[in-house]
């Protein structure tokens, strides 16, 4: 097992804020919109350096999506920002009609996704957003795993022409990807090469998968760990190459099992290479209030459950 260490923990939303600060200096067409949550989205630096390129829309997320779509007509690259719950499910028709179907170059960038919002509870913990967004034709869906990757992804999506959903979160998590990484949309990142089971992880679950890989290694199991930061378009070649080698897989995501990354992988395996697949995700349930760590444990979104599911997948392969 390749050794991963970290010296610092940071929130992925701060990676977004850092990426926006870079874009503020490098891409004059980038503008930011926010529905009265600038502190939560870490946009302060961008706003301070580019006040004329920030547009406050008030607590009116549906209008924010329409405004962003309209701004593309003059060649702007709008980043529409709020919490993931309000930036996807709440405004689905606005995104569907004015951004996705109308094929406008809008970046919907959302923080506070998933259970790790913690104590705020289920009203704010969206676990359906990846599914909602990936169903929209032409929508690119990205869920980076740490501060550095989120920063790199933010910069990369500005250069991509077309609608994007970029999802990140609030809790501080280990920074384990390189600061100077090149972020290629749709290209999976090999975290650890292995032979016994493929673990496909996204977002906060990538670090948990690394911890799981270390536990599995102690049991003599050599897990291949792949970071699927781009849910759509899915890197099918990376998925197939890995499962052809290992013969079984686990998906790991901070999202509903229904409609998430695991389902996208299942579709590939069903069509092209049948193999056992186990899901690590929330099983048809809303979240609740608790600390992020308590919630991740309760809903099985941690290393221990990834290990359990990996063992199950291997047992199914060998049965």
């Amino acid at each position, binding site marked *: 097992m390749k050794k991963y260490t970290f010296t610092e923990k940071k929130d992925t939303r701060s990676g977004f804020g850092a990426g926006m600060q870079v874009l503020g200096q490098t891409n004059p067409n980038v503008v930011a919109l926010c529905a009265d949550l600038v502190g939560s989205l870490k946009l302060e630096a961008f706003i301070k350096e580019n006040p*004329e390129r920030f*547009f406050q*829309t*008030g607590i*009116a997320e*549906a*209008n924010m*999506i*329409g*405004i*962003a*779509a*309209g*701004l*593309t*007509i*003059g*060649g*702007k690259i*709008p980043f529409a920002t709020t919490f993931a719950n309000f930036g996807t499910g709440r405004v689905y*028709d*606005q995104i*569907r*009609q*004015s951004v996705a*179907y*109308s*094929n*406008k170059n809008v970046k919907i960038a959302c923080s506070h996704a998933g259970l790790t919002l913690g104590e705020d509870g289920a009203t704010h913990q969206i676990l359906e957003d990846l599914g909602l967004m990936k169903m929209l034709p032409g929508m690119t869906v990205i869920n980076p795993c740490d501060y550095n990757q989120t920063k790199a992804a933010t910069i990369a999506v500005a250069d991509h022409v077309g609608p994007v959903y970029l999802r990140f979160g609030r809790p501080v998590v280990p920074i384990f990807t390189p600061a100077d990484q090149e972020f290629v949309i749709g290209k999976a990142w090999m975290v650890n090469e292995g032979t016994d089971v493929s673990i496909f992880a996204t977002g906060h679950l990538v670090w948990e998968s690394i911890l799981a890989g270390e536990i599995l290694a102690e049991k003599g199991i050599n897990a291949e760990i792949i970071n699927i930061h781009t849910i759509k378009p899915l890197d099918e070649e990376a998925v197939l190459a890995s499962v052809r080698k290992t013969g079984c897989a686990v998906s790991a995501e901070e999202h509903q099992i229904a409609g998430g990354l695991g389902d996208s992988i299942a579709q590939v395996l069903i069509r092209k290479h049948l193999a056992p697949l186990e899901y690590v995700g929330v099983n048809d349930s809303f979240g609740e209030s608790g600390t992020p760590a308590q919630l991740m444990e309760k809903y099985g979104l941690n290393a221990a459950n990834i290990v359990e599911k990996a063992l199950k997948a291997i047992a199914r392969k060998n049965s």
Partner: protein
Amino acid sequence: METLSGLSAETITDLKKLRGALRLRLLDLYFKANAGHIGCSLSCIDLMICSLIAHKKDNEAFILSKGHAAAALYVCLHELGELSNEVLDTYYKNGTTLPAHPAPNRHKGIPFATGSLGHGLPIASGIAKGNKILDNGQFTYVLMSDGETNEGTTWEAAHYAVNNKLDNLIVIIDRNRLQGFGSTDEILGDSADAHKWKAIGFEVTECDGHDIEEIYQSIETFKYRQNGLPKVLIANTVKGKGVSYMENRMEWHYLPMKPQQYEQAVEEVQTKYNL
């Protein structure tokens, strides 16, 4: 000779001629397609003659937020030479680029999907905001139905337009007082009421939505009043205007014409508009 509106008498005459000519084209399209929504298009066609055809410059945006009147948009774009006869003939047919509600990016002049109500004003406000940043002097036109003002996004965008001083945004409300399945008064009250728009901070003008000179002049006046206030023209209209049996009749939101009805409609329009 110049008229009150600043238009030449010839231009006024030409625009007035379009009232009948485009109505006949609409009747033809809807009858051949056996399609509904003719009443909605007849309600707003005079507004579109004055805004989309007469006022809008080539590089400016016009958003038909009430997308169910798509045929009115198509006959206007055809009149402007942006749609050919051949393309117009495909209206409503299998594989057409001109469906019952506008499809985006198929033709110049239709950059957005509309018809899911309440999306037009947010989009137009975004375009107007972009024009403000570029300081390019362009106006943005958006035509809405009065029923559409039921939608919350309309009011979100209205507040945004006022707070951002979008005096380059010209909203036109086709206030025929009939919506999906009832009068606006019955369904949710008159949300196109001038007092509501004034209270938010719009510059409001009311007009007869079938009087070409009045509509044209109202928009012209808006363009000269760069005072920081977004504009709304509340145009009092008649659903099905020009065809006696359709006027103010809710069912012509949906009904296709039968052959005899089509013939009567053509005859009435020819007579009424001196064709």
